[in-house]
């Protein structure tokens, strides 16, 4: 068998691939699709819906707090709202929205045709969606969780919280950890094994580093939450004594387990966003990022530091002085890798070849400002004596919102303005985007900056109202006005998205002139991502012109990733094509770059990304949805303490796993015949 296919007709090749990879446009086809791009878009839409729900809850709370002695909401309602707001934003928005971007972008940036485990990917999405539906179904019965997003015992044990509220919380989170863990494992293996040839570890885009760090942190930190929740449910349901100090348990056990998980989680919801910054800022500065290696190292070390700082959430619990000193020092040390990243971005902007102030860049500049504010007030609270003053006041609320809004929401919106054209094939409106940025930036600062002052003036968090004349009145009014302005900002974004769907300019393959592989295919990409598996020779393949696009003398000729869609590609390809170089419509290619004999992508070695094997991809499958539904049944049965139904759902769950894993012709073809 020859190693090179002479004269591949790219037009015919892409037709063959389309036939192999296409998902039928039926309801069944949609429900069983395993296309990472579909799943990524679903993640983004679902997580954004949760953002809107959490935002509505915040809006209700700000309306209540706008003036003293307000009676708009009852105390019980207020408890449920702040608990659901925190839980929704932290668990069902901040991390899943980044998973959405990673889902969509990771295979594209790696030059792969899908994730390493496409069906597991679909399963992650369905369990994410259904666990969210599960926790929100508590609203129908008026028993939403009411113990705050970190649910401290003893407030949340059976004695002080007898209803189903906290059972919804514990079971929904246990359900969600399944989704998160499955997704994290998928990202790790995808980044390890499906990078296109040439993309050695040192050439991975920085977004890969942050996704990888985040995923590893998830794999190692989620189980602490699982353990804490299992103990809580056992205490509530069966009368065990994990958190009962009278029988040898300790409420502090919950706090330790929760924050062992919770602080890595903070980095899980910000690191992919800093990775986005490291992708977007260089594009709009028209130069590679300054200190690529240092940013990668800072990303990884932030993830590692994240495991050593959990007790700074617990300075006021009376821990030994030695512990608080250690955790205080460790928490301050986190500012070193964070600082490296910020200075790398600033240096990139400083040393830019050209400044392009498009909307994504505006959001990134806003993000840097908010990141610095959130970092500085974070360093303040890392100091133990100050923390004793500020803990459980609005100062902490200000800090965590600067972190989460600044370092998560702003990069996410930058990411939407930057990558949505890739996903939908249509540009967003720049003028509306500029308005969107300024309105939101003003709104967010107006909301959260005064919280520093009310916090220092002693206003505790999580109070449903406050008396007049404490010096908090006008500041709270300003905060509520700021919240209203922020709502307008988010609405402007939604208007922009819907406007672009109908009337946005058609997006070319690489509208921003960016450097990485996701821009080397059409907007939106075909189901199979790349007609031929791309190869790269550096960190910025699309900026290396003919090296990346046409190969180098002595190697096989190779095509731009999607030459078949030359119309989209003209801007990148023909511009850089040199005289005498081949016409992309028809090329000679090594067989491993074609992979058109089934759903396949290339498996490569861990460090150097040398081609290693052909990785067979499963067909679309309905099993991920069936398994997710079976798990939903299991958690509902657990919620209602129905042992028979629990057993039935458990058996169905196991049977679904068996059905999923049963070999099909595609995943397990018959033994090869000698040839």
């Amino acid at each position: 068998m020859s190693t090179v296919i002479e004269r591949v007709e790219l037009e015919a090749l892409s037709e063959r691939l389309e036939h192999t990879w296409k998902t039928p446009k039926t309801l069944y086809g949609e429900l069983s699709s395993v296309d990472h791009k579909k799943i990524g878009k679903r993640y983004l839409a679902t997580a954004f819906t949760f953002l809107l729900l959490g935002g509505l809850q915040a809006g209700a709370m700000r309306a209540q707090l706008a003036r003293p002695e307000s009676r708009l909401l009852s105390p019980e309602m207020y408890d449920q709202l702040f608990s659901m707001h925190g839980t929704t934003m932290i668990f069902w928005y901040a991390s899943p929205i980044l998973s959405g971007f990673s889902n969509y972008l990771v295979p594209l940036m790696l030059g792969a045709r899908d994730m390493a485990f496409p069906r597991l990917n679909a399963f992650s999405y369905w369990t994410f969606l259904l666990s969210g539906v599960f926790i929100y179904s508590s609203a129908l019965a008026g028993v939403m969780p009411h113990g705050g997003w970190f649910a401290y015992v003893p407030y949340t044990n059976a004695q002080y919280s007898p209803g189903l509220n906290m059972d919804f919380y514990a079971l929904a989170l246990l359900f969600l950890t399944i989704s998160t863990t499955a997704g994290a494992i998928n990202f790790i293996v995808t980044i390890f094994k499906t990078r296109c040839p040439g993309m050695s570890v040192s050439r991975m885009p920085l977004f890969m580093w942050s996704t990888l760090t985040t995923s590893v942190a998830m794999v190692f930190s989620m189980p602490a939450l699982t353990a804490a929740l299992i103990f809580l449910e056992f205490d509530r349901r069966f009368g065990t004594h994990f958190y009962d100090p009278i029988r040898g348990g300790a409420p502090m056990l919950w706090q330790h387990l929760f924050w062992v998980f919770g602080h890595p989680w903070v980095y899980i919801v910000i690191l992919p966003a800093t990775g986005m910054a490291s992708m977007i800022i260089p594009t709009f500065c028209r130069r590679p990022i300054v200190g690529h290696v240092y940013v990668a190292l800072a990303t990884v070390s932030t993830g590692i530091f994240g495991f050593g700082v959990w007790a700074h959430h617990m300075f006021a619990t009376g821990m030994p002085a030695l512990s608080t000193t250690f955790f205080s020092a460790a928490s301050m040390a986190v500012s070193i890798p964070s600082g490296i990243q910020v200075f790398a971005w600033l240096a990139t902007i400083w040393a830019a070849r050209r400044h392009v102030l498009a909307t994504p860049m505006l959001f990134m500049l806003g993000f840097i400002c908010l990141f610095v504010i959130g970092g500085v007030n974070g360093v303040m609270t890392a100091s133990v004596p100050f923390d004793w003053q500020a803990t459980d006041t609005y100062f902490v609320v200000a800090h965590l919102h600067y972190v989460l809004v600044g370092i998560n929401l702003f990069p996410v919106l930058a990411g939407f303005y930057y990558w949505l054209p890739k996903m939908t094939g249509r540009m967003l409106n720049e003028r509306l985007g500029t308005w969107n940025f300024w309105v939101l930036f003003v709104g967010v600062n107006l909301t959260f900056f005064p919280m520093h002052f009310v916090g220092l003036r002693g206003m505790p968090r999580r109070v449903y109202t406050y008396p007049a004349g404490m010096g908090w009145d006008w500041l709270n009014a300003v905060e509520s006005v700021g919240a209203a302005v922020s709502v307008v900002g988010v609405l402007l974004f939604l208007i922009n998205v819907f406007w672009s769907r109908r009337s946005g300019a058609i997006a070319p393959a690489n509208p921003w002139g960016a450097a990485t592989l996701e821009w080397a295919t059409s907007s939106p990409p075909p189901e199979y991502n790349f007609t031929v598996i791309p190869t790269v020779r550096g960190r910025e393949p699309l900026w290396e012109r003919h090296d990346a696009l046409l190969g180098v003398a002595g190697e096989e000729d190779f095509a731009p990733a999607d030459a078949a869609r030359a119309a989209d590609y003209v801007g990148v390809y023909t511009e850089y094509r040199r005289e005498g170089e081949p016409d992309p419509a028809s090329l000679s290619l090594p067989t491993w770059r074609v992979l058109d004999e089934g759903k396949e992508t290339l498996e490569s070695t861990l460090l150097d990304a040398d081609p290693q094997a052909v990785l067979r991809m499963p067909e679309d499958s309905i099993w991920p949805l069936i398994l997710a539904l079976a798990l939903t049944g299991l958690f509902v049965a657990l919620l209602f303490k129905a042992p028979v139904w629990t057993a039935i759902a458990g058996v169905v769950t196991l049977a679904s796993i068996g059905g999923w894993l049963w070999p099909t012709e595609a995943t397990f073809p018959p033994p090869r015949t000698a040839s």
Partner: protein
Amino acid sequence: MSTAAYDDRPRRNGRGTLPIRLTGSRSPGWWGTVCFCATEAMLFASFIGAYFFLRGSVEAFAAEGGKYVPLTRPLIMTVLLLTSSASAWWGEQGIKKGDSMRLRIGLAVTLLLGVAFLTIQASEYAHRETSWTTSAYDSLFITITGFHGAHVAGGLLMNAYVQLRAWLGHFDAERHEAVSNAVLYWHFVDGVWLFILAALYLSPRLF
């Protein structure tokens, strides 16, 4: 579905054959299993961490957690599990050479040893004088050993599933990824037991 005409011949990359990967260490399936074991290991690390945290910081817990626990049953269970790891390994080595019968025997022996482990664990529970609602120590002891028992049961289900597929002739010297992953998971479950043995049964005798 274009599977019918699938060409399964090895493909070349110019430097040698480029196989269609089905099995082996450092394949995606192997990495996935390793990551799964890592996250499960952290669950047990959290449990055992909780044990030492409570023993170190709560006097009532330390009084009970520091008591000697009878060792006869757990040591027998340890021997059973380690032997079962060996038999699983022996079976896997068999299929690597294409010997499906050796795989089936190895898996069957592993299954029997695993069932014996669970039986002795059940008898250990039956002989306990306290229930898991007596104290935090009992709650934690039963939760840790019970979760481990559930993982053993899960490993046995995997074993039975792979056994079924082995009888259907799914595996040969080149294609046995499911076997390797199930056996890897089984070794992991056995390894966790050693940590549980050290923490819950042996450590009270040391400090």
